[in-house]
């Protein structure tokens, strides 16, 4: 009986190995040379080294540095943004691990960090990550949730809408359509929240209900029969 249960853990493991700290540091210097001021390169090297030691992907940090430098952003602001991103990647990893993803892929971590910066809570990232597996890519669902929030849909509502669509077995393409559909409704005069609600009602939801997964919250699963 143990074999099929154990295989669950295998399914979740990604092929990705954590970057070695020293290699990451060399990589940062090589990638940023000539593209960013020396002070920025030095600071980001330190941040990247620390991130790599903790098993977090370094590539998003490099990208953020390149982006800031290309856009002519002052050095301190670039470094601050990179530091913040590293913290968000860490937070995203905790949330996705809580979701049962033992080794989240770098793309999922980036999606999680992206969602957090858009305003989703760690709990919401966790819930989406949990429900996405194994049929949907959490990187994708997290990006969509972040986008809905950017449009003005309240985070909780956006996440609930995605949860319902996932449970209904919608294809990934149908999930990708969501931001466009919300925009279309808004162009016709609805608010973002109204647009999301209308889509949710279409999905067969019957209004607000509690999210599952609260640790320690004891509530009756169903009405008590005497």
């Amino acid at each position, binding site marked *: 009986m143990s074999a099929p249960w154990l295989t669950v853990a295998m399914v979740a493991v990604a092929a990705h190995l954590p970057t070695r700290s020293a290699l990451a540091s060399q990589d940062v210097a090589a*990638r940023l040379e000539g*593209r960013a001021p020396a002070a920025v390169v030095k600071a980001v090297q330190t941040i990247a080294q620390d991130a790599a030691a903790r098993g977090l992907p370094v590539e998003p940090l490099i*990208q*953020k540095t*390149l*982006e*800031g*430098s*290309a*856009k002519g*952003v002052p050095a301190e*602001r*670039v470094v601050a*943004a990179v530091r*913040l*991103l590293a913290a968000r990647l860490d937070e995203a990893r905790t949330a996705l691990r809580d979701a049962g993803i033992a080794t989240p892929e770098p*793309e999922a971590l*980036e*999606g999680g960090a*992206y969602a957090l*910066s*858009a305003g989703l809570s760690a709990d919401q990232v966790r819930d989406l990550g949990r429900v996405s597996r194994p049929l949907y890519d959490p*990187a*994708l669902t997290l*990006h*969509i949730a*972040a*986008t809905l929030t*950017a*449009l003005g849909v309240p985070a909780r509502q956006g996440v609930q809408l995605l949860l319902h669509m996932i449970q209904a077995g919608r*294809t*990934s*393409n149908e999930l*990708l*359509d969501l*931001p*466009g559909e919300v*925009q*279309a409704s808004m*162009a016709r005069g609805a608010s973002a929240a109204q647009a999301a609600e209308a889509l949710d009602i279409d999905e067969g939801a019957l209004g607000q209900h509690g999210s599952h997964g609260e640790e320690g919250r004891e509530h009756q699963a169903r009405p008590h029969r005497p």
Partner: protein
Amino acid sequence: MKKPYHDLVKRLLDGELRLAELPPDLRAEGEEALRLLGAVDRTPVTLSPAVTSRVMATVRERTRSPARRAWRWLVTPRNVEVRFRIRPWLVAPALAAAAALVLVLARPQTPVSSTNVVFVRFMLHAPGAKSVTVAGTFNQWDQNAAPLIPAGTDGVWTTTLALPVGQHQYAFVVDGRRWVADPAAPAIDDGFGRRNSVVAVTRQGARTL
């Protein structure tokens, strides 16, 4: 109101302790707890054989209907040109001068290939611009790596890039200094006080997010 079980009794239930290892004054509580959990029914459950026939009936229905053959997509290589409809509100006159459209030419590689690449066309309506490029995570934010070229006389600039599957942030750079996100797509704060757009590339095509 029953009081909580003693910690040691809970560890007994967890299988970490044996009843004999409990202090004498907790034995009764331990026995009660074991009796409670002992009532659990472990009988294996057999579902009705009708489950198999119902599942297979649905499975056969799926494979018969051409509209639901999406699952075959991942197995059968195809050369497909997919054009997404230009969303009508993007060309509404009320919009600001620049309107970005992303059309997609999807040509998936064979399923065995490790390169998952989709051709994505970027378009920007920017009349009066002298140069337009697109920079993003797919080209290390190099604002010179992907120039757009004018595609006619009506101020439309365009380029086609091969992008790997995944989510990519990007923005257009107009005249070498003005960073413009897709104004028609929801943009995300880039952490520097400006905004980026996101394009999600899947094996079935690409969408701006």
